[in-house]
């Protein structure tokens, strides 16, 4: 009765000499969710697109079996595939802002999908409203006239799911549908997908986030370099991973209630001195209060985590600490001396004491420069090749990278070079701005380990800003929870995470995938 919606055996996809996918088999049944998990370049998206007959024109695809809705799809032309797309299988992509047409309202976007699915002009409007209501789009009668840029990330993703469901498909292919979203919004989108699955939709979910996927998937396929490493039910993979790579992946997931053994804190000095102190910072943009009465104290060799969703004021706080933005009231002290109140000229000589590790290292490098030029600019005095090599060594990057441009490096290497540049200034404080958010989970674990080593070895203090609660938990001694520019909760990491006082903190923690909360 429940025949697979998609059944593929031994799928291989090659781009010229390069094999992107080799011998992958999968099948998705109605009312189940199959997840493809892997780091970037593992071939997961390529497979998902092949199921819709979408592929790079240079790709050569082959398989022994390719059944779409029980029909042999090998040898299908573009026209045959087009009949399937939308009506039988809908596609949801990661970035809803790019996937939605900026010149069309949500209503038009969904109407097009509904009409393509065979609804008549008359019945379409009612169906569109029904769909939008179904995916939890608030007040669809009024708000469906809005455009993509007027919506929040969560609402965009809902609109996109609604239009993917427009043709009443039986299969939904979702490619990283929650990656760009805040935790609580991510939770809502996953819940929506789980509900659609329970209503009988088959889902093929693509993600790099094993923890998020484990929550709703019935079957997880772990991919690496285009090959299936391991597969099975999510609980089995999480608790008893068979393959070393899966084990590595599982271990790299930052846990909420488990902290890696931290290098001994600076125990010899009983009361570490205060390095950076922000006092009742207030920042106002016209009518919007970005920060209101925010204080932060950073002691030597310690890490303060700042948690909050987008728009909570995290970035503004960082700019104030860095003194690239003046607060309306309150002040920042560095080593007990004025910092935010100094004139820029006086501050300039001391700027090297505070360095930034950026979210997107690539844009923080001059595009014309090689790694060596980047490091030379940061190192004190007239630094030669030897000093640059030494700086790279400290962050475990091979020396031959010196002559390359950042564009030619991997994401992890770029972040390491950015850290090397920050360290070259011999700072007392590192401000990490979503420093690992854009990285795959394994690379993320490596960079976190590197930062931890630097903190322990050099006694550098850090402010670690992130929307990722689990990561902040891992690195922080103290945590500040920001919401709409206010500190809703602050305290030691243990207190905030184990005994949250404020309702908002509790709701944030509750929206995390359960896999993160389990002790290891």
């Amino acid at each position, binding site marked *: 009765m429940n025949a697979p919606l998609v059944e593929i055996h031994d799928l291989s996809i090659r781009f010229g000499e390069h094999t992107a996918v080799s011998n992958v088999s999968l099948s998705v049944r109605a009312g189940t969710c199959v997840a493809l998990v892997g780091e970037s370049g593992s071939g997961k998206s390529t497979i998902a697109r092949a199921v819709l007959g979408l592929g*790079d*024109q240079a790709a*050569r695809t082959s398989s022994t079996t390719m059944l779409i809705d029980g029909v042999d799809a090998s*040898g299908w032309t573009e026209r045959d595939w087009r009949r399937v797309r939308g009506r039988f299988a809908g596609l949801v992509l990661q970035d809803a802002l790019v996937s939605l047409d900026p010149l069309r309202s949500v209503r038009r976007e969904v109407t097009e999908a509904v009409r393509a699915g065979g609804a008549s002009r008359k019945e379409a409007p009612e169906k569109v409203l029904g769909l939008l209501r179904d995916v939890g789009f608030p007040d669809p009668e009024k708000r469906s006239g809005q455009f993509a840029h007027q919506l929040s990330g969560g609402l965009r993703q809902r609109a996109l799911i609604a239009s993917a469901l427009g043709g009443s498909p039986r299969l939904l292919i979702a490619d990283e549908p929650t990656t760009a979203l805040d935790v609580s919004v991510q939770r809502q989108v996953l819940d929506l997908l789980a509900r659609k699955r329970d209503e009988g939709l088959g889902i093929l979910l693509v993600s790099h986030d094993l923890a998020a996927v484990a929550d709703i998937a019935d079957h997880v396929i772990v991919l690496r370099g285009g090959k299936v490493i391991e597969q099975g039910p999510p609980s089995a993979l999480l608790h008893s991973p068979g393959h070393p790579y899966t084990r590595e992946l599982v271990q790299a997931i930052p846990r909420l209630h488990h902290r890696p053994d931290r290098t001994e804190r600076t125990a010899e000095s009983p009361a570490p001195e205060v390095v950076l102190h922000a006092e009742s910072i207030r920042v106002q943009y016209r009518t919007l209060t970005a920060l209101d009465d925010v204080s932060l104290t950073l002691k030597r060799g310690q890490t303060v985590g700042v948690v909050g969703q987008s728009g909570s004021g995290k970035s503004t706080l960082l700019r104030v600490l860095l003194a*690239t933005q003046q607060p309306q009231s309150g002040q920042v002290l560095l080593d007990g001396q004025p910092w935010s109140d100094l004139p820029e000229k006086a501050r300039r000589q001391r700027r090297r004491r*505070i360095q930034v590790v950026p979210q997107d290292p690539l844009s*923080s490098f001059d595009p014309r420069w090689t790694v060596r030029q980047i490091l030379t600019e940061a190192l004190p005095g007239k630094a030669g090749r030897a000093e640059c090599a030494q700086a790279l060594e400290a962050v475990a990057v091979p020396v031959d990278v010196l002559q390359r441009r950042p564009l030619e490096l991997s994401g992890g290497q770029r972040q390491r070079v950015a850290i090397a540049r920050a360290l070259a200034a011999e700072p007392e404080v590192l401000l990490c701005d979503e420093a690992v958010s854009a990285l795959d989970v394994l690379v993320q674990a490596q960079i976190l380990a590197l930062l931890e080593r630097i903190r322990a070895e050099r006694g550098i203090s850090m402010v670690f800003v992130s929307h990722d609660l689990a990561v902040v938990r891992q690195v922080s001694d103290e945590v500040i929870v920001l919401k709409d520019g206010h500190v809703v909760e602050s305290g030691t990491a243990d207190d905030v995470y184990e005994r949250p006082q404020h309702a908002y903190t509790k709701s944030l923690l509750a929206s995390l995938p359960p896999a993160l909360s389990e002790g290891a």
Partner: protein
Amino acid sequence: MSEIAPARQAPRTRPSRPTAGVLVAGLYLLIVLAALIHPGLVAASGPNDTDPISNLLAPGADHWFGTDELGRDVYARVIYGARYSVVIAFLAVALGLFGGVVLGLTAALSGRVVDEGLSRVFDLLSAFPSVLMALLFSAFFGPGTVSLTTAIGLALIPSLARIIRRQAIAIRGSDYVLASRTLGHRPWTIVVRHIFPNAVSPVLLLATIEVGTSILTVSGLSFVGLGPGKPAPEWGSLLADGQAVISYAWWPTVFPGLAIVVTIFAITTVGRYLQRRVQGRHS
């Protein structure tokens, strides 16, 4: 094994290798360059060697482009004319570029008052077409090479300055300038190291294409008598001279015309190619 989606077309190749067209255009520009540096190398006779007996000869083995009504070799005049048309266009663009860089960077990096003021000046300047500008300068300083160059150069300033201003503002707010600031570098150092090179390099390529367009402006203006004046063989004034005899001799008009068209075409082709290459490297 069954093939599902066969390759329909080869993946797009990056424009890293020059096409035959670009090579031909480049070769042509080399000849133009030779004509600029040492016209005697490319043309046997001088541009003003008159020979009344053999006037208005049709193109042939002795005179490739024929002769005009004074018996001057049209080929030699076209070759020597490059010294006027191309050099004036080049100098005008250099002037425009210099002014554009200085004013664009000043607008971007000074305060709001300076920026607003300069932006209005750009608006004002761009309201004057280069023809009007040239007329103005000719009226004040008399027609000639200097007036022509200055007029075309000034007319180029606003558009180049606006591009540079926009680039510089974007770069000033970039993460790498922030990184440089947090390293304690002085604003002037940051301008020289990051803002100037990154704002100007894309405009340099645009400027090469601008040279082509300016050749047209130079020729047009000297066609109406605002150029270097007779007997200078500027391409536009060659066209004007040929006009008188065009009903029975086509060559004194057609060959200078071709020189203008082909040179502009070649500069644009090579310029666009260089632009694609540089963009390919950065994205």
